[in-house]
């Protein structure tokens, strides 16, 4: 039985919060609802980025998803160092 859109969002959020690694491939989200089409999951994940619940993380060649609070970037790290 496929999940509703809100249920799916909650499942993605739970996954992004609890996963051992902060960055997740889009495929990691597929297991949130095995009945949903990959494209649906992708659309939900991207909608969550627009809402600010998730963010993109990129190595340049690969793009992943993450919870903004779990990600340190170069500029926040520099700022932290400057405040030391």
């Amino acid at each position: 039985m496929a999940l509703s859109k809100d249920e799916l969002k909650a499942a993605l959020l739970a996954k992004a919060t609890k996963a051992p690694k902060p960055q997740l491939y889009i495929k990691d989200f597929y297991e949130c609802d095995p009945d949903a089409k990959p494209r649906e999951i992708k659309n939900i994940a991207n909608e969550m980025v627009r809402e600010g619940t998730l963010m993109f993380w990129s190595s340049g060649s690969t793009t992943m998803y993450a919870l903004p609070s779990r990600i340190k970037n170069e500029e926040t790290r520099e700022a932290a160092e400057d405040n030391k």
Partner: protein
Amino acid sequence: MPKHDTPLLDELEKGPWPSFVTDLKRQAATKPECWDILGQVELSYKDRITHWKHGGIVGVFGYGGGIVGRYSDVPKEFPGVAHFHTVRVNQPSGLYYSTENLRGICNLWQKYGSGMTNMHGSTGDMVLLGTTTPNLEPLFYELTHDLKQDLGGSGSNLRTPSCCLGKSRCEWACYDTQALCHFLTNKYQDELHRPAFPYKFKFKMSGCPNDCVAAQARSDFAVIGNWRDDIRIDQAAVKAYVKGDYPSNGGAHAGRDWGKFDIQKEVIALCPTGCMWMEGDVLKIDNSNCTHCMHCINVMPRALRPGKEQGATICVGAKAPILDGAQFATMIIPFMKVDAENEYEEVVEQIEKIWDWWMEVGKNRERVGETIQRVGLPTFLKVMEVEPIPQHVREPRSNPYVFWESDEVEGGFERDIREFRKRHAQ
């Protein structure tokens, strides 16, 4: 920003080829951060190693591609390039520009960036090199509002599609590459800007088998122009070539004395299928044996042209060597019409069939060509609902290990060992 001494780079101001060092110095007059580019590259020349760090997360809001983050690992010495992100701007199909548009981009980059660019990056985008995170949103605002154009792709997205100049200035284009490229780029804006796939996915469109954008070598989905009827021949022009009135290969070999043009040696003998011959002074082609390699057409452009029944061949799965080795795209659909009237329905159908399957089956960071290698071409042909034909292989398999399925074999795989033992003692 102070000027740095660059004795090593200065050596690259010598010689006849245009010097990027001279160009950087010129630009530094109005964009002093170019002194820091020169300074940091000079340091790399001294140390023989890069001084750039990993990207991380930089982008405009809501886009998962188009900006690539970059930071200096010696920011104190070169503050002008401490944060130095790349902006990919989606190029117009065929790489034509009005100077008005180009000047607009230059002004934008004067305001928000380093003033240095790549025309163009390897995938085809205009690449604007070097800006800071706070500049990204205003730059994007003005790019979209004032110049009415958009960013290209990066990461696990559809990458910016690219094409050859096609029908705009080439007599060999078998379909309108620019129109298809523009159509697909717009149709798939979501896939271009937001990650959707296990890894990158590239479209490239070439108008003929000469393949000037290297679609066969570089794209996951290659649309290469082709024709399926007879090469058009102007026999009067053939005679003119034989007489030496027209230069061979459109004049491409004019710089050296290769002797008088010899149609036998230069065209007929080099035809890979041997399907051409002369009857008196008339050129004959057995078109049923032609493999559309373009050699004869390239050599005698005024006498020979691709046939009139034109379309494209679809090849899937090319990639550079990372990681299992380089792959050329495998021929999947020998011929299809490329038709703007029905919004390229056939092309779109094939693309989406591949995506639906690859998004499901592809592993993380696996290009579609690698997925096909992993599951085998027979499986992929079934996914594509394509009837297997000899054209799909160079030669039939030489090993006998065929994966028969239960329903292909009379009686299936289920058998009763007790029944078997009644007739065959252990």
